[in-house]
């Protein structure tokens, strides 16, 4: 084949540019103006003044920014949250400045995980290879749930009480392992946390992760337009979150980081 001439290649690239699809541009101007007006972007104030995290826990650039909670505000908080630059494989961690009301029990119990399916059915539906913990004493999950969002779906493996992993008295859930694809932008899971919740950077094997402990926090899904998908809102407990092999994984219910890491290390 003859080589393309410079002009022909440039023309082809110019033509291609009209067909390239970037992720949708989020609204940035309003958030910037809001931070300037609130004084959080005062000259030379720096970005490390988010306040709720020790400096050494914060990843790279730090931005505290106002975030309209949309539907979630109506359901849960009726307030303003401050997002920080913590993102791990399709999951964002967002700090709320107000204490949310308790979730309706129906939301917690049923809608949040998706539909209950068998593990085989979950394997058929998921757009990835489901990994399961091989920890002695856990056995197969008591319940498996499938949620079609985001791309590839979200799988939640749920156990009741197990030795070392006592069940929550309200939900009767002992341990949850959640998995979804990491490359799901512009959709994403958002974890809303409150004062009293610690977010600690940690390692899970060779992967970077976060230990989110204490306080009250929620997890919900935002679609590509940034809207909260309300059927995913769920009150969650202390969690270990990390990314491995193109998946974002979360272990919820272990009382300590060491216990969570033990579960994480057994996941294959």
């Amino acid at each position, binding site marked *: 084949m003859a080589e393309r001439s410079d002009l022909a*290649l440039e023309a082809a690239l110019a033509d291609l540019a009209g067909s*390239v699809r970037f992720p949708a541009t989020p609204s*940035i101007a*309003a958030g910037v103006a809001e931070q300037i007006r609130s004084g959080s*972007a005062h*000259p030379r104030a720096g970005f490390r003044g988010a306040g709720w995290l020790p400096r050494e826990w914060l990843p790279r*650039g730090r*931005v505290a920014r106002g975030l309209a909670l949309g539907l979630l505000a109506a359901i849960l908080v009726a307030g303003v949250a401050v997002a920080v*630059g913590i993102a791990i494989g399709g999951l964002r961690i967002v700090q709320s400045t107000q204490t949310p009301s308790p979730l309706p029990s129906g939301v917690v119990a049923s809608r949040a995980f998706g539909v209950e399916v068998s593990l085989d059915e979950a394997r058929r539906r998921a757009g990835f290879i489901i990994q399961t913990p091989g920890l002695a004493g856990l056995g197969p999950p008591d319940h498996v749930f499938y949620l079609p969002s985001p791309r590839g779906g979200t799988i939640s493996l749920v156990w009741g009480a197990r030795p070392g992993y006592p069940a929550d008295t309200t939900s009767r859930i002992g341990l949850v392992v959640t998995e979804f694809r990491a490359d799901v932008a512009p959709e994403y899971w958002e974890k809303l946390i409150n004062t009293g919740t610690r977010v600690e950077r940690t390692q899970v094997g060779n992967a970077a992760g976060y230990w989110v402990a204490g306080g009250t926090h929620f997890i919900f899904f935002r679609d590509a337009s940034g809207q909260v998908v309300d059927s995913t809102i769920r009150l969650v407990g202390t969690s270990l979150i990390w990314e491995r092999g193109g998946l974002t994984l979360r272990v919820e219910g272990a009382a300590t980081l060491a216990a969570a890491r033990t579960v994480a290390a057994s996941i294959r």
Partner: protein
Amino acid sequence: MEGRPLTDIELIEQAKRGDVAAYEELVRRYEELAFRTAYLVCGDAFEARDAAQEGFLRAWRALHRFRPGAEPRPWLLQIVANAARNRRRSGARRANLIVRAAQDRPIDPSVPSPEAEVLATEQRRELMSAVDRLREDDRLAISLRWFAELSEAEMAAAMGVPRGTVKSRLSRAMDRLRAVIAEGRADG
């Protein structure tokens, strides 16, 4: 001045006097370009959004250093791209650029038939695939030039290199792209 939109230079002069609304308007004009540039640099939409926001806030704090009468676009791009590069270091990913299907592309009256448009779409996908097979610095140079449509001066600001380096990197990237295309044709 009433009745016409303010120029970028007018907006930035007002912003320097503390007019947040003027700065918000300036950000609105450049948020898409800033986000796309940041996305190409750091390869992640979340990080790109944060980098753009961080860059615009940094620029607000540095307005007193902005040279009167200068164009704000390359200056803003430089600050946003710096923020994006800082974010890229600890979690490098490649921007996932997708070629839209023929039916999603604006109607092009120069294309003679739907079949020709489908063929053109396939050729665009092949070309994007070739761009994707380039080394990251070559891919970034081509993406910034052709997909974000930056000038060489703006590319220099975004890449944090002298303008002469941009020229040589772009030339090298185009050479390699031609080679990748030729390889693909030879294999096919």
